[in-house]
């Protein structure tokens, strides 16, 4: 072994030693600090379970509605019977007037009203068109959707039968009538979220946001604390880094990455199974996708955390921003309809690509190729935020060494 090789070997060993030292130091500070443990250990454990429990019922069942049947005919009773038999709606009250129904609605006894007019049966008997009115509670979008859907389906079914009757009455019968009643059949298929479940829609996006935000706030807390505790409000104690910024950054990020690798497995691997959320993605692709996501979040957080003066500031300043991040990620309001300005703004945060990519792989069974756009942008963010972390850390360390230099100078009197 030449001298050069030996020296090289020694540098590598010292590099690894330094990185390990920083990593262990970071782990120790993390677990000694109650606040950080809450943010980086308790929150990722509790939040997903809590939200999973709150939204356990994916969809609404047996929503109480009132029926106002002014027709009191066989057909109207049949229609109401069918409606009552659906999974989603139940006829909880029957009233003689809309006024009474409104009272029940105001008292929150029902969330919708089905009104059948007095001439309902008469018009049907004459072969005319009649109208059924539906009134929906719209305090929640879910009420409107479920009541409207149940009524529409029941009435469409009934229409088909009445059509056949009428065609028969007009002398068209048998197969010919069937054909006229249904010349074109149609079928709609809702993909990737059978039964239009609310949890299946919200939770995948929310899990990614929780991963990012707890990590971000946790790192902010750690940095803010070391700033408060050290002599010159510096970020890393001078004894550890010995001026070697890269080792500090890598050591710290390995520590965060290891912890959040575990949490990613828990949130994206275990939680979807426990709460029966969509999980039809390819595991290998999911793992490959999560790597740049975690890295970009880590470096993004390390960069921003440099500017936090205190340990609590990050939480107070940025917690509410989680809601902005959730919506800007485009899981609910479709990305195609987001204004270009907000779309560009959204690109700053890893969660945007993270949510979209995770949805596409996990919920829509896409592959890494499907999410190439998100995947590449996460790697770009990783590179970019690594550089900003490097720059900000160097700037901080320079400031400290300047202060140290100033202090060591003898004071001339």
């Amino acid at each position, binding site marked *: 072994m030449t001298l050069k090789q030996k020296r090289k070997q020694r540098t590598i060993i010292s590099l690894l030693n330094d990185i390990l030292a920083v990593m262990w130091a970071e782990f120790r500070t993390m677990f000694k600090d109650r606040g950080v443990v809450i943010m980086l250990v308790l929150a990722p454990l509790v939040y997903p379970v809590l939200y999973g429990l709150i939204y356990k019922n994916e969809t609404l069942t047996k929503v109480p509605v009132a029926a106002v049947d002014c027709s009191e005919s066989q057909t109207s009773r049949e229609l109401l019977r069918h409606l009552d038999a659906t999974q989603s709606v139940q006829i909880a009250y029957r009233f003689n007037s809309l006024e009474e129904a409104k009272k029940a609605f105001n008292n929150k006894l029902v969330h919708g009203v089905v009104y059948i007019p007095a001439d309902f049966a008469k018009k049907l008997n004459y072969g005319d068109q009649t109208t059924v009115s539906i009134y929906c509670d719209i305090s*929640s979008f879910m009420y409107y959707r479920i009541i409207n859907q149940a009524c529409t389906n029941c009435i469409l079914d009934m229409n088909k039968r009445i059509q056949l009757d009428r065609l028969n009455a007009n002398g068209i019968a048998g197969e010919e009538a069937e054909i006229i009643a249904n010349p074109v059949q149609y079928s*709609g298929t*809702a993909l990737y979220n059978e039964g239009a479940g609310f949890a299946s829609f919200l939770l995948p996006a929310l899990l990614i946001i929780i991963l990012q935000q707890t990590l971000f706030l946790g790192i902010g807390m750690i940095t803010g604390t070391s700033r408060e505790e050290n002599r010159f409000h510096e970020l890393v104690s001078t004894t550890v880094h010995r001026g070697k910024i890269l080792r500090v950054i890598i050591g710290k990020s390995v520590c965060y990455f290891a912890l959040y690798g575990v949490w990613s497995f828990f949130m994206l691997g275990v939680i979807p199974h426990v709460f029966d959320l969509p999980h039809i993605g390819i595991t290998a692709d999911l793992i490959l996708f999560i790597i740049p996501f975690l890295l970009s979040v880590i470096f993004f957080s390390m960069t921003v955390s440099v500017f936090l003066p205190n340990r609590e500031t990050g939480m107070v300043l940025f917690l509410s921003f989680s809601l902005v991040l959730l919506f800007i990620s485009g899981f609910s309001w479709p990305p195609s309809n987001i204004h270009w300005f907000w779309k560009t703004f959204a690109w700053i945060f890893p969660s945007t690509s993270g949510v979209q990519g995770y949805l596409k792989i996990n919920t829509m069974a896409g592959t890494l190729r499907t999410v190439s756009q998100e995947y590449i942008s996460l790697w770009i963010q990783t590179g970019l935020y690594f550089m900003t972390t490097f720059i900000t850390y160097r700037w901080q360390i320079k400031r400290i060494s300047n202060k140290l230099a100033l202090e060591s100078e003898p004071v001339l009197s």
Partner: protein
Amino acid sequence: MLKNLVTGLKTTLNREIKRMLSRPIYFICTVLTMSFCYVFFLTFFNEGQPNKMPIAVVDMDHSSLSRQITRNLEATQQAEIIMHLNSHKEAREELQRGNIYGFMEIKRGFSKEIISNRRPMLNFYVNDAYLIAGSLLNKDLMYMSAATSIGVQQKILRAKGMEENRIMGILQPIAIDTHLIGNAWANYGTYLLNVILPGILQLMVMLITVFAIGVEFKERTAHDWIGSTGNKMFPALTGKLLPYTIVFTTLGIIGNLLLYSYMRYPLNTSIGWMFVSTFLLVVASQSLGILFIGITPVLRDGVTIAGFFGMLGVSFAGSAFPIEQMPYPTRIFSDLFPMRHYFNIYVNQALNGMNVRYSLISILALVSFSILPFFVYNRLRNAAIRQNYPVK
């Protein structure tokens, strides 16, 4: 006695205003955060409903009828055809990439099958992983498919020489007329913003209340704070929090004005009721904030509890997913959140325009939150005088 109280109040008030101006965090967390959220959410949901969402058509029939269906789809408000694809596989891949949210598939020989009475199938697919886009497109595509079917029916019946008025009765014997109570049209912004904006407000109120008090313990200035009123907790607390009550209520009222006057979201009552409930929400959240920092006069823990509670408040309003349909323990738990009661008042008053007596219980619930500070009154006072809590 009363004079002492007033002087004490004045001293703390002056002291607090000076503190507020000396640190940027107070300005950022009140005016700046709320303004940003107002601008963000109002411009984000400006459209009301997502229109012209991208879909694809897989037309393997290439007949005049299939072209007619495509034209009809283009005319719908919510869908826009951005792609003409050749196979189901291609369309499905585009769906997975998120380039389209749905597609209509017209099979080869579709129009021929109609003519030969073989009742062909028209298939459409929507992506319900994007639930909003999926369900809105589902409605549009369903409607267009039904319209296609009805169009063919009409043609056949006319060819049979049936009278026009009889045809209508056969095509659609029972029509549906859906009314949305309170909200003239299904505006997505109405559902969300009436909860999210007050939700962020109450979160910020809790955080700032905890911060403003907790930072005195942390920086060991609590003694000075309570000392300025002669160790009287009541004027010390009132003087400290009154500026925030005013600032946050003003910001909340600006939010009300933006929603109901500027965006013209449904308001079937006097806007004054919303102002009152906004004020009550602010005070209730402040009371909770005092409780949190009173339970643990350690800033970092107080902030964590406030953040946790405030974030959950948005879910527990029960707007996105109704509370009544959540698991039973959740329903009871939801009453602990001021947002739940605020949301009830909003639904009763602004949305449904009901008599105020229906909201009375929710108003009382909001008011009753102000009892909470009394539970930690002595604890907080002792902590402030002795400053015997760990600062970290």
